């Protein structure tokens, strides 16, 4: 019994990811029993499961449980992502219905893998030890590799899947090696024990800790698509079916950053002096490479891929600062980024469907005349990603940059601001194409209530989170503060009394 340790299992704490995983299995079983045409309706099962998981997360907020022998941490930080991630996946499901049918993707596998990927993202957010984090990362990534290659008739999709798989597997190796070295140096895979060892014994400068830290940075750098580990991103984003790209740009970023922020900013905070320089360089490079390369893109999916790299750079600016004030800013930024991106991809899916066209910039010409609502929505999302004042993107950027400035990262903030200016060009190009260029008259109209609903959700979220930021900022603060409690066990105990 001694060897096993106290086995405290809190089933309630794994309710949300459990629901998603169970729904994935149910989807798989039900869908495989149906004919190909019928199986498209399993999307509704997936949607129900994701909504149920989001509700379960809401019900569980306020808990603070460390369970499964320290492998899972259930606090407000976890709850924040347990709510956000299923909602994002649900939005993806909403705009997938007709798209999956139109592309002839295997519906059962599509929805089941989407749910499995969601489970992985949620596990990453709640992981209390490095192995569970790795498990979540793999569950999420492997599902995404398959989904990227799902449009079998399209060679670009296969290319996307293969490139994503090869580089993703390679980066996973880095991460795992880093975890192994950290385990070797500290004697534990539990994040809390690792943090205690690093703090107490000042083994910060032990070469194994530093090497492990470096490899973990490389591994996460790949997953969040930070330059110079970004080379897979444009090809994978462009080739994958658009709804899958949305999942990659939003869900996977959320999962990876949830894990990255928790590991680095909370548990490895004592090593800030060691990792902040590396993150500084990653941030500066990601922003510059992402924004400059995005300028030259003619394909919007490719442009959004580079834009995703740039946004990873902005988030890394905040992480470089590393102070606890920046935590809420990062969570808030992720919130705004997620909905603006989901919306942009939803518009692309709608355009592909309605016009039977691709996702080139030219395909959007004259969209304002043919589909005024789609064009207006796309303009909104582009403005938010650009960082225009009333929208979520602006508040997030402003928040992150101001904290970074307070932490005296003046040069980094200057680079970030210049980059923001550069980014305005390529986001504005989309708006110009939609409103100021003549496109071919396209008559085909498809009415898709679920897609329009997804668009409405994303658009409303982008506007509301930007206009009324306070409830979201305070939610982010509460989430981050609850994750940070582990750093101050004494004060945390005092507060509860």
């Amino acid at each position: 019994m001694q060897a096993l340790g106290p086995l405290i299992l809190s089933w309630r704490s794994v309710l949300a990811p459990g629901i998603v995983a169970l729904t994935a299995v149910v989807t798989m079983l039900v869908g495989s029993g149906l004919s190909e045409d019928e199986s498209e309706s399993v999307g509704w099962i997936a949607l129900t499961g994701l909504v149920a998981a989001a509700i379960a997360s809401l019900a569980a907020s306020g808990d603070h449980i460390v369970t499964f022998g320290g492998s899972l941490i259930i606090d407000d930080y976890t709850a924040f992502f347990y709510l956000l991630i299923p909602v994002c996946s649900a939005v993806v499901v909403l705009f997938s219905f007709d798209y999956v049918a139109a592309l002839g993707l295997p519906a059962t596998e599509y929805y089941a893998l989407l749910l499995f990927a969601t489970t992985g993202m949620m596990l990453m957010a709640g992981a209390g030890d490095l192995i569970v984090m790795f498990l979540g990362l793999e569950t999420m990534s492997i599902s995404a590799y398959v989904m990227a290659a799902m449009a079998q008739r399209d060679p670009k999709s296969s290319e996307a899947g293969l490139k994503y798989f090869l580089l993703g597997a390679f980066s996973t190796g880095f991460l795992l090696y880093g975890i192994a070295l950290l385990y070797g140096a500290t004697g534990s895979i539990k994040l809390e024990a690792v943090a205690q060892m690093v703090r107490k014994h000042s083994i910060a400068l032990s070469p194994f800790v530093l090497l492990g830290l470096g490899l973990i940075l490389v591994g996460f750098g790949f997953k969040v698509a930070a330059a110079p580990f970004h080379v897979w991103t444009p090809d994978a984003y462009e080739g994958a079916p658009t709804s899958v790209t949305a999942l990659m740009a939003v869900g996977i970023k959320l999962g990876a950053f949830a894990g990255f922020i928790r590991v680095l900013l909370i548990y490895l905070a004592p090593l800030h002096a060691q990792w902040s320089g590396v993150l500084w360089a990653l941030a500066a490079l990601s922003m510059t490479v992402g924004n400059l390369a995005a300028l030259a893109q003619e394909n919007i999916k490719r442009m959004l891929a580079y834009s995703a790299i740039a946004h990873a750079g902005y988030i890394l600016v905040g992480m470089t600062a590393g102070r606890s004030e920046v935590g809420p800013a990062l969570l808030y930024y992720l919130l705004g980024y997620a909905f603006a991106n989901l919306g942009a991809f939803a518009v692309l899916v709608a355009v592909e469907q309605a016009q039977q066209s691709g996702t080139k910039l030219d395909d959007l010409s004259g969209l304002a005349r043919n589909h005024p609502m789609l064009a207006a929505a796309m303009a909104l999302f582009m403005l938010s990603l650009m960082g225009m004042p009333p929208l979520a993107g602006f508040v997030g950027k402003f928040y992150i940059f101001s904290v970074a400035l307070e932490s005296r990262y003046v040069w980094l903030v200057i680079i970030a601001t210049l980059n923001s200016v550069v980014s305005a060009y390529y986001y504005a190009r989309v708006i110009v194409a939609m409103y100021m260029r003549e496109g071919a008259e396209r008559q085909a109209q498809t009415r898709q209530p679920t897609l329009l609903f997804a668009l409405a959700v994303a658009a409303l979220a982008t506007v509301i989170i930007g206009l009324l930021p306070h409830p979201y900022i305070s939610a982010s603060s509460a989430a981050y503060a609850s994750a940070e409690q582990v750093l101050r066990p004494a004060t945390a105990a005092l507060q509860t009394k």
Partner: protein
Amino acid sequence: MTTWFPVALMTAFAALVVGLMVTINAIVGPRSRDPVKGEAFECGNPPSGSAWRRFSVHFYLTAILFLVFDVEVVFLYPWAVTIRQLGATGLVEAGIFIVLMLAGLIYALRRGMLDWS
């Protein structure tokens, strides 16, 4: 240091023996090259066809299926060893695990993974 000395000695000795054998063999050993010796070894049969052959994808699917259930059994061993300590919780967890695996098997069957026609 002294505790590791025998290990170091053993390592050095092993390296020496292997090195000696390889070197002596390279110097003294007779050499003859002919086409038969250069052939790929296929258990004594004369080799036929190209090595760059396509395999039916069914082999991979069967291999994956085998892996899934092989790994399942491996995971059941530690549970079997600690079954008393884990008690009811362990039973439930193992049950969930087996049910999930069965779901995988049902899926594989429905997708015709064991259909070899």
